[in-house]
């Protein structure tokens, strides 16, 4: 009885008792969720256009952030370091297309997936070799991101919102909006979307496959940089950030591998739920740190009921 109470009733009583704290928790979860969604988005783009389950998406976030900070450390002014990093991400996209994707075209999915694991390792080693393995601080202020915090007093309580988090959320919304417009309105964007359904159709638009791939990986690189800046501002820059790379996977599967909307909703849902779970169940009942696995177990449970994810298309098997 006591036990059931502590699982089923007490957490909700706590939530009602301190609504301002609940709001704070929700906000923290939302910010994390936005970042998960961003990573997942880069992933969905690549998957849609090339059927590649890109395990390296998360590491690209770290790599981009590391490059940015590393360049700054080497004396490049912050505002110049950003475009330079984008150049690096572009070169990376070209290199990946040339060296990895092109020779592996038409190989089974699993092989391509493994190749992206190879890319992941390579980037980790390469990044550390050049910029060193130690923890770095994101150049938040130099980039002109406000760092103070705003406070509110709802329900007679107290909620504090970091300005950089707010900037992150707004930035993410703008980024996603731009991306959606690009995908839906531009010729290139439509080619990318068509590619997922039918290679021939996409080619008939007159854009070569390699161009599209480079473009897609470059967009994924831009998203990675954006994610890297905001996440780095919260948690520092190091390959320990890899964990969030893994977090993108449950987000994706929850949303369905091909759905842009699914990636966004999946990201937000997991960000918020894992925070709530950690604060109201994990810490009081299970010794905390449940954020390491909650997303995975949650996605697993959802998949048991909808094997194709929340927004994925149902697969009817044929023979």
């Amino acid at each position, binding site marked *: 009885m006591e036990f059931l109470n502590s699982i089923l009733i007490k957490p909700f009583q706590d939530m009602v008792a301190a609504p301002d704290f609940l709001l704070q928790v929700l906000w923290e979860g939302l910010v994390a969720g936005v970042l998960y969604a961003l990573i997942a988005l880069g992933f969905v783009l690549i998957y849609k256009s090339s059927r590649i389950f890109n395990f390296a998406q998360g590491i690209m976030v770290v790599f981009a952030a590391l490059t940015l900070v590393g360049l700054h450390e080497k004396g490049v002014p912050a505002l110049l370091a950003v475009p330079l990093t984008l150049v690096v991400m572009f070169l990376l996209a070209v290199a990946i297309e040339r060296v990895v994707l092109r020779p592996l075209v038409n190989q089974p999915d699993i092989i391509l997936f493994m190749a992206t694991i190879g890319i992941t*390792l390579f980037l980790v080693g390469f990044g*550390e*070799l050049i910029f060193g393995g130690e923890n770095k601080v994101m150049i938040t202020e130099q980039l002109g991101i406000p760092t103070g915090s705003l406070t509110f007093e709802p329900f007679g309580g107290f909620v504090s919102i970091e300005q950089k988090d707010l900037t992150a959320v707004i930035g993410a919304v703008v980024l996603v909006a731009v991306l959606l417009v690009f995908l839906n309105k531009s010729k290139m964007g439509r080619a990318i979307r068509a590619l997922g359904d039918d290679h021939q159709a996409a080619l008939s638009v007159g854009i070569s496959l390699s161009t599209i791939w480079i473009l897609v990986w470059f967009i994924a690189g831009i998203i990675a940089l954006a994610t890297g800046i905001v996440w780095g501002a919260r948690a520092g820059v190091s390959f320990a950030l890899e964990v969030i790379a893994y977090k993108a996977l449950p987000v994706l599967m929850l949303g369905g591998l091909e759905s842009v909307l699914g990636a966004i909703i999946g990201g937000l849902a997991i960000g918020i739920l894992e925070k709530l779970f950690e604060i109201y169940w994990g810490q009081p009942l299970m010794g905390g740190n449940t954020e390491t696995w909650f997303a995975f177990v949650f996605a*697993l449970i959802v998949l048991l009921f909808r094997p194709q994810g929340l927004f994925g298309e149902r697969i009817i*098997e044929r023979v």
Partner: protein
Amino acid sequence: MLYRTASQFKTSYHADHALFPVRQDAWLLGIILIFAYAIIPMTASEFTFNALLIPVLIYALAALGLNILTGYAGQLSLGTGAFMGVGAYACFKIITAFPDLNIVVAIALSGFFSAAVGVAFGLPSLRIKGFYLAITTLAAQFFLVWLFEKWGWLYNYSSSGAIQVPNIEMFGIIVAGPNASSVTQYYFVLAVVTAVTWLAINITRGRIGRIWKSVRDMDIAAELVGINLMKAKLSAFAISSYIVGVAGALFVFLWRGAAEPNLFDIPLSFRVLFIAIIGGLGSILGNYLGAILIVALPVVLGTLPGMLGIPIQSATVEHLNVMIVGATIILFLIVEPHGLARFWQIIREKLIMWPFPH
């Protein structure tokens, strides 16, 4: 003419079902076994045992376990490290609860725990397919490592949160723990690995192996020839996790001597996965070749520059190692997606033809 097969006709299906229908293969294996059991132990140094030989064997065994699941039955797993952990913690609990139990029995029993956990996390594979299934094993990976950390009972509430291997005797000889000699440990591991490998070869070449491969190649068709997918997949999870669990127990008890939860974290899972991929998915031999490559690479990288007189920091070596492993994986996938094992096959076929080109 080393590999002349022309005169070796099979007169019965019985002969065709021998482990090595071609005589030279049997000789080669014989030579390798003589090396492994007699020549190497006489010549190897302490460093070689601990940095190369023992880890190669243990990693090869873990990769063999994973290979059964991924290479034979086609179910991708990213959680091997955690399943090794289950084996290791189970072994620790068994040994500390029954100090008089023979360690071989303890290790064999601990495999059943990882097999059970493997089956539990394998259940979703009946509904979830392909990449979506990767999430299941990742859930296992992160959840189990968290559990190793939070569940004090597992490590007997030791203040460090780590498990420590006591001195364990078998027939009057110390085989595990701080006082065990490397040679003894090497022999112990070698014997276990030889036995498990032999059993695994038998399973994979018979009915069960065929069933797994058919599920891997086309699960719908497998179901339509009457294969019970549930049994096929769960048996692969069970046997794979059993072997992985045994490898995990050896990993801690016969090699590391102690373990903290994060030892079983995702980098370990990936290391084992790479060994299986580079060695060759769907091959037994490949696990050994892959393990040799992955284990030896950092050792070579660490000693080579010193020998050549190039000053290089150990951190740099570490980073280079990661980078090279990544590049090697990509290279392999491009050049030969079937891994080192396929290379050996090609060489072998050339030898059979040699010296006649056709």
